[in-house]
């Protein structure tokens, strides 16, 4: 276990070096679907953070009892429980947002980020490391989602959080709030991230 990363390393890795969206390309469904407004993206990121944190901690606490062939069942069971809690809580306290997000909250159950972190970290390391990892990954996910959502909302509607940031003469690029806009924005941002990484590693070698 000596070669396993520490809590701090896990936390930092999640934010940029191993960003779930830009580096691991996980969780594409919410990334493309709910990033047409920043508020929706943040709510989704919050729900994912809650589920990821709870699932990671629980999995880590019971990691010594896990049987290899039953581990996925237990991960899914745990994740599904917390997703249901998140879904009900949203429906109760953020009713309109819950309707906007629609089926994407229940779909967190099949979000690969969470099952990936359960498998890679929580089932191998202590609850503290698992929690740090969950927070790091959630921040990374939230960062990725809000970067895409900010670009889409600003270009698509001229607004941010529903408040106008671009001059009224801005011709709203409706395509940006539609599904193709998600692919375009994500592709361009991913390209930028890859370009920066390539340049950084080239500098190191030089």
């Amino acid at each position, binding site marked *: 276990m000596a070669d396993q990363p520490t809590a701090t390393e896990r936390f930092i890795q999640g934010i940029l070096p191993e960003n779930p969206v830009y580096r691991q390309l996980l969780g594409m469904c919410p990334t493309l*679907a709910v990033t047409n407004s920043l508020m929706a993206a943040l709510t989704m990121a919050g729900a994912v953070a809650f589920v990821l944190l709870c699932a990671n901690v629980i999995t880590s606490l019971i990691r010594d009892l896990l049987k290899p062939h039953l581990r996925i069942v237990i991960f899914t069971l745990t994740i599904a429980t917390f997703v249901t809690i998140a879904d*009900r809580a949203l429906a*109760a306290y953020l009713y309109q947002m819950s309707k906007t997000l629609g089926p994407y909250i229940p779909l967190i159950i099949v979000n690969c980020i969470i099952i990936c972190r359960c498998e890679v970290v929580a089932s191998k390391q202590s609850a503290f490391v698992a929690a740090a990892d969950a927070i790091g990954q959630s921040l990374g996910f939230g960062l990725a989602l809000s970067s895409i959502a900010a670009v889409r909302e600003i270009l698509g509607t001229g607004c941010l959080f529903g408040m106008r940031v671009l001059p009224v003469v801005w011709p709203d690029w409706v395509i940006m709030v539609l599904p193709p806009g998600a692919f375009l924005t994500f592709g361009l941002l991913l390209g930028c991230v890859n370009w920066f990484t390539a340049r950084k590693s080239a500098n190191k070698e030089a």
Partner: protein
Amino acid sequence: MDAEKKQPAGGLKANYLVQAWLVIFLAIGFGVSLAGVQLALGPVIEQNKMNETLQKVPELVLGREATQKMAAENQTLEITPKQIAVKKPTSEKFYSVYQASYQGAPKGWVIKTKGQGYADNIELLIGLTADLKTITGLFVLDQKETPGLGNKIITDAWRGQFINAPASAPLVVVKTGATKPGEIDAVTGATISSKSVTTLINSAITDLRQPLTSGAAETGKGGKANG
């Protein structure tokens, strides 16, 4: 792994159960906690739906423009909620019905109905004129249909087809473009969702035609008796 290999081959069933003890234990634990969450949050969610329903009733009965006009003039509809039980051969179905009236004159009805869609239950609010001859509006209160296909039933464009549709005969879903009144265009790629909505509307109207016509008369009589 070694410990597992040493176990006797017999008693396989018991063995599976023993292996799965954690799964069973967690399932029970999570189940209980989810029941607790539902007990705590269920009423709040119902209240949210109720508030949304009451908020949507004027628009469903009068249409958007007339509602905005009323709101601008600071006038509101009186909404009377009712529970109506409809007896079926095998069971009894309960409908929540909202009677909208303005200064004592009945303006229309809003029926809340729920039934199976493609993915999950669809919950609808159907607006009808007071004489139950025309549909005045449709609102999807809850749905979990396929994103991008089935969930197009919530769009204004699709729901708009139901406004002013005749309620005297069952509505028909067509795939090739609606030409006659009473025909509804299916959402492309979501025929089942479209049919579910239409079937729900048809059955709700059929079920409630009798109780609402007689019920409306009763309310009228009651009002006179009280007066």
